[in-house]
């Protein structure tokens, strides 16, 4: 297909080319300026300040941001995000698989897709309230379990503790994974399944050699997405455990200036680490996505 699709009568190729690139710049320049001013500019300043603590270039602030109580913050955030990503990922995957095999009732698949689209965007303050009402000290589920002589606190599940927050995060992690996996599973051709059966493969063997590897990039990519989603979540955990040792809360704490003088650059350093983490994840997810698309297109 020619790049210059249609030449209006009477216009030379050269004129068309000039008009095109001017058009391109006219359309793209405001966009580029917008991103430069509101995104690139603040982050460049943050990165610069993170790498020049106290005015001299050095990695001192970056190192301090990864030590002591902030290191613990990164570890806690990573643990929390990994846990909710893996559990949410597996449950979401299972949900997508189960729903894909059920033909009846007809409304199941569309309803679940709608619900997932909605639930994956939910979060923040209302979600925290909802779970305080459910598994908090006066929560309805807590009371119901007390009637059965079960105390969640004995199992370490409190709404403000680690497992409580994991349970809350799963509320949007599971639907997000479902949304990611549904198109990938739909891409698993029936013909492959039948071909494998003809060649004598059991269902387990099919999943091991065919279905699994094809779905693997999507599953991995989905879990990374869930990990990042959980890592940067702020509002929910702010309501539940404001002083907790998690990276977003520590950023807020540093923004308040609650540090010993001389450590003001810590906030910038932590942000730089977080952004690096996200950029790396984006690269991995994009690579995995390309891999997954290969099979979906064929």
């Amino acid at each position: 297909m020619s790049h210059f699709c249609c030449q209006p009568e009477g216009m030379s190729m050269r004129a068309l080319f000039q008009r095109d690139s001017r058009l391109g710049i006219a359309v793209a320049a405001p966009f580029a300026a917008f991103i430069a001013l509101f995104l690139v500019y603040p982050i460049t300043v943050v990165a610069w300040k993170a790498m020049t603590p106290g005015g001299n270039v050095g990695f001192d602030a970056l190192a301090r941001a990864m030590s002591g109580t902030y290191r613990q913050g990164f570890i806690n955030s990573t643990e929390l995000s990994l846990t909710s990503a893996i559990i949410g990922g597996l449950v979401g995957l299972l949900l997508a698989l189960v729903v894909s095999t059920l033909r009846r009732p007809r409304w199941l698949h569309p309803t679940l897709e709608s619900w997932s689209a909605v639930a994956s965007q939910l979060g923040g303050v209302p979600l925290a309230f909802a779970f305080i009402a459910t598994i908090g000290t006066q929560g309805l589920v807590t009371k119901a379990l007390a009637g059965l002589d079960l105390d969640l606190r004995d199992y370490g599940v409190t709404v403000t503790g680690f497992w409580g927050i994991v349970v809350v995060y799963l509320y949007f992690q599971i639907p997000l994974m479902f949304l990611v996996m549904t198109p990938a599973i739909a891409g698993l051709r029936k013909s492959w399944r039948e071909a494998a059966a003809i060649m004598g493969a059991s269902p387990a063997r099919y999943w091991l050699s065919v279905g699994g590897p094809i779905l693997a990039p999507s599953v991995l990519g989905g879990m990374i997405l869930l990990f990042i989603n959980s890592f940067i979540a702020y509002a929910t955990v702010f309501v539940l455990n404001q002083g907790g040792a998690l990276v977003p809360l520590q950023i807020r704490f540093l923004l308040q200036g609650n540090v010993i003088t001389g450590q003001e650059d810590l906030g910038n350093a932590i942000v730089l680490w977080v952004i690096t983490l996200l950029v790396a994840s984006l690269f991995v997810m994009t690579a995995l996505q390309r891999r997954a698309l290969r099979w979906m297109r064929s």
Partner: protein
Amino acid sequence: MKSSRAMSILKWAFLVLIAMYFAVPMLAMARFAFQNVPTVLLTSDTLLTGWSLGGLWSALSNPKVVSATWISLWIAVFAIAMNFLLLVPLAIVTEVRSPRMRPVLTALTLVPWVVPPVALVVGVSATFRAAAPWFLANTLCLVPFYALWAMPFTYRVLDNGLQAMGARTLFEAARGLGAPLWTVILRVIMPNMRAALVAAAMLTTALVLGEYAFASLLLKSTLPTQMLVYAGGDPRGGLALALFVLVVTAVCLGIVVRLMRKRGVSLPTTGF
């Protein structure tokens, strides 16, 4: 036969469990918010007593909540407008003239995803607060930043919409028939983009109604931040308000999904 029956039962049991996990917190929240019963007495016996919407009305009539809601809605409107102004021409030009730019643009519009609100607020504090404090004085300063975070899914929705309608073919056909550029865009492309535009607008609204970190750390009074402040003084009303906002957001997103499915457009999950 038996094993497939057992499998079927297992599958449905699993689905029921999942459904309960998603329904129970909402029901619990509804009980806390709308039952005029002391929380200690909220047991299975009191399931039907004292239901009233009083908490919600008092929350919705609180002046601070009302002004915060208006501000949030205006921010959403302006953010949507800003995004459309920046991205619609870009998406049309890419689809019609330079398809090779598509991966570049998809990547560029994904960049805001890499800088979440909690991180960008540090940058904004360090730069705008010192260089241009008048900018941060107005709550509407949130508009460009919310537009930024809406960009990843806005661009993808617009792009999907353009591809689904076959914008290129339509464009060439219209131009071939001699229509001037503006006519093509306004009377051929845009009407077919209605679904994508509405979907992007709803997704942006959901974002604005749910974003807490950036607004609260810049001490702005938007609906999410005011909701938490209100809940501190009136717990029952605060919960009612939260449930109300949740339902409204769900309805908006439900509209999005229906629109998208009608047009055969898939829903973008950011980054994937």
